[in-house]
């Protein structure tokens, strides 16, 4: 995986919606106060768990675009709105065809498909015909964004399960460096689906209460939802920057990570190399940290080998695991740390598992945070690591 240093890219603006809130200010307030967004699931289940639900009702799509209605589309719409002025300015500067869209998602419009399908199967009324193109498929949200903004450059979803939106950053960065676009709307979006909650339960890795990443009492994942969008451009004009991405595969097992975290180690080293940084220059690690027994332990071993004693936070205890949107949401949380000079407490980590050779941040901490590394790992052994920074 040869990857030499690459120039930093500018993050002109960003927005985030997750269990902590739907504005950057709201998310930052709850994140730095250590307040979890995990709540009871919105559908009936034959087992206990908590979910990271958006804490507000999501506004319906404008009438002209009603054919795209899904929770997924509403999340994308709500998260796009705050970026509209910066996006308009990009379109004015570069032209519609020079602005691209690269988003990550695991679920696409499954939230609506599963509702209509299961209501029908459980003997209810015949479902309204849900549309393959306008609702179920990944491209529905791309067509919605095209209709809302007039963007006419390359548009695609990356879908590699839980590494999707981390990998969207890497893909967007390549488009910019190759000159195939001048600005990219990059990020991720995934609405909560009953199928994924039940799916993780079937794998035996769903927590019954709030998840506890890196704790000796950890017992699995909470599923979350949300979206985060960023405007990425070449150059280093913006204070917030994408410094490096590393991508690779475990080539080990469909759902279990390599026990020593070798795949995780490779992508972290690749991200540092692309950023042109030494391990000592990373001020904070936002871990994948989903609170599964194996996942946390293999990631901790990898972090310890690559980054030594850099403080480590998992934010899954605030947001749950938002699957394909997790990488983007956590990138936004990292940018909040860089802007506010506060690292959040790794919620739920006490008592920290003493067998893990890392420094888990047990309380929020003020500091001069300049560079943060963020990991996302997925089914199929798909791994990605991002390095985000703030200009000194």
């Amino acid at each position, binding site marked *: 995986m040869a990857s030499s240093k690459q120039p930093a890219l500018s993050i002109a603006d960003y927005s985030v919606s997750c269990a902590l809130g739907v504005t950057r200010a709201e998310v930052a307030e709850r994140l730095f106060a250590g307040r979890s967004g995990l709540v009871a699931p919105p559908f009936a289940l034959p087992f206990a768990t908590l979910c990271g639900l958006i804490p507000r009702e999501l506004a319906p799509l404008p009438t002209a675009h009603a054919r795209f209605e899904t929770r997924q589309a509403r999340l994308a719409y709500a998260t796009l709105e705050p970026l509209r002025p910066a996006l308009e300015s990009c379109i004015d500067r570069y032209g519609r065809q020079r602005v691209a869209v690269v988003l990550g998602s695991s679920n696409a419009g499954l939230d609506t498909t599963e509702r209509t399908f299961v209501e029908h199967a459980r003997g209810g009324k015949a479902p309204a015909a849900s549309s393959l193109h306008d609702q179920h498929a990944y491209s529905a949200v791309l067509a919605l964004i095209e209709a809302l903004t007039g963007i006419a450059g390359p548009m695609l979803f990356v879908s590699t399960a839980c590494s999707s939106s981390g990998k969207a950053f890497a893909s967007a960065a390549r488009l910019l460096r190759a000159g195939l676009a001048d600005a990219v709307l990059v990020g991720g979006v995934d609405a909560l689906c009953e199928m994924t909650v039940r799916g993780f339960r079937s794998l035996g890795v769903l927590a019954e209460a709030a998840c506890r990443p890196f704790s000796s009492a950890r017992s699995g994942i909470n599923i979350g939802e949300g979206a985060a969008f960023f405007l990425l451009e070449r150059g280093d004009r913006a204070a917030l920057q994408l410094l490096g991405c590393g991508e690779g595969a475990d080539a080990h097992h469909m759902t279990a990570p390599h026990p020593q975290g070798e795949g995780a180690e490779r992508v972290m080293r690749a991200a540092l190399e692309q950023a042109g940084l030494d391990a000592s220059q990373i001020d904070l690690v936002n871990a994948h940290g989903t609170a599964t027994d194996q996942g946390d332990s293999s990631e901790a071993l990898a972090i310890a080998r690559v980054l030594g004693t850099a403080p480590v936070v998992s934010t899954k205890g605030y947001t749950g695991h938002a699957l394909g949107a997790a990488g983007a949401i956590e990138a936004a949380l990292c940018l909040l740390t860089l802007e506010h000079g506060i690292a959040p407490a790794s919620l739920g980590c006490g008592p920290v598992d003493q067998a893990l050779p890392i420094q888990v941040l047990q309380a929020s901490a003020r500091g001069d945070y300049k560079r943060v590394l963020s990991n996302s790992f997925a089914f199929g052994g*798909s791994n990605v690591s991002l390095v985000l920074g703030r200009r000194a």
Partner: protein
Amino acid sequence: MTGLHVRAMAVWTPRFPSLDAWRARAASEPSTPPAAILGARARGRASMLTRMISEVATSAAQAASIELGRVPLIVGSAYGEMETTSQLLTMMGEGDGTLSPARFQSSVHNAAAGLLSITTGNQGFSTCIAAGDATAAALLIEAQAWLAEHGGAVLVILAEERLPGFFAHNETFEPAAAALVLSAAPDSALAELEMGQRVPGVAVRAEHPELGRTPVAPLLALIDAVSDAESDVLVPAFSAALRIVLRYKAAP
């Protein structure tokens, strides 16, 4: 700008189960993909989509004499693992809605890419893409950007399996998979692709007379264009079309 050089191509459909059969339009009785690389156990559990992807990956890599365990992999599908998703939806509607963990882990868009990576020991780059009818265009752009930075070769695959019944009112099409090995260097290339201008307002449908309205159609059209030494082809890119100009080395 890096050119994209086509080093090898592969096609698999139930009635045209090889590139040669596809080019000759020599239809045979419908079959299933051998997908020998997966091994009996994994193959038995694999969906049609995963088997088709494995099959064209193997054929294309073989035709280009590259190792599947080393080549970067860019996999596209507009709809993904629909058969498996449909099985999970059925399980959700029955009894207390318990799901099969084996089905659940195989329902993700990167199920085939993950399985191939594990089977061949490929620890390098792979990605999975979806962009509706524009999936073929998105794969070529992703390949172009990757090759501009890393050089070498990439294996690009596009596949769709049959849609489950509850979506049949939207579309029906034949399953199909197509693959290209693309390289930055022109060595032994069948053709050079130049990604041309986007042509706004020209709506190209992803549709093929043999297969129906499948998102694989634009990649098959490109394979047909290379086979017939045509000079350009239009592929759908949302409300625009992407013009791809094809060049061939002059005969020696």
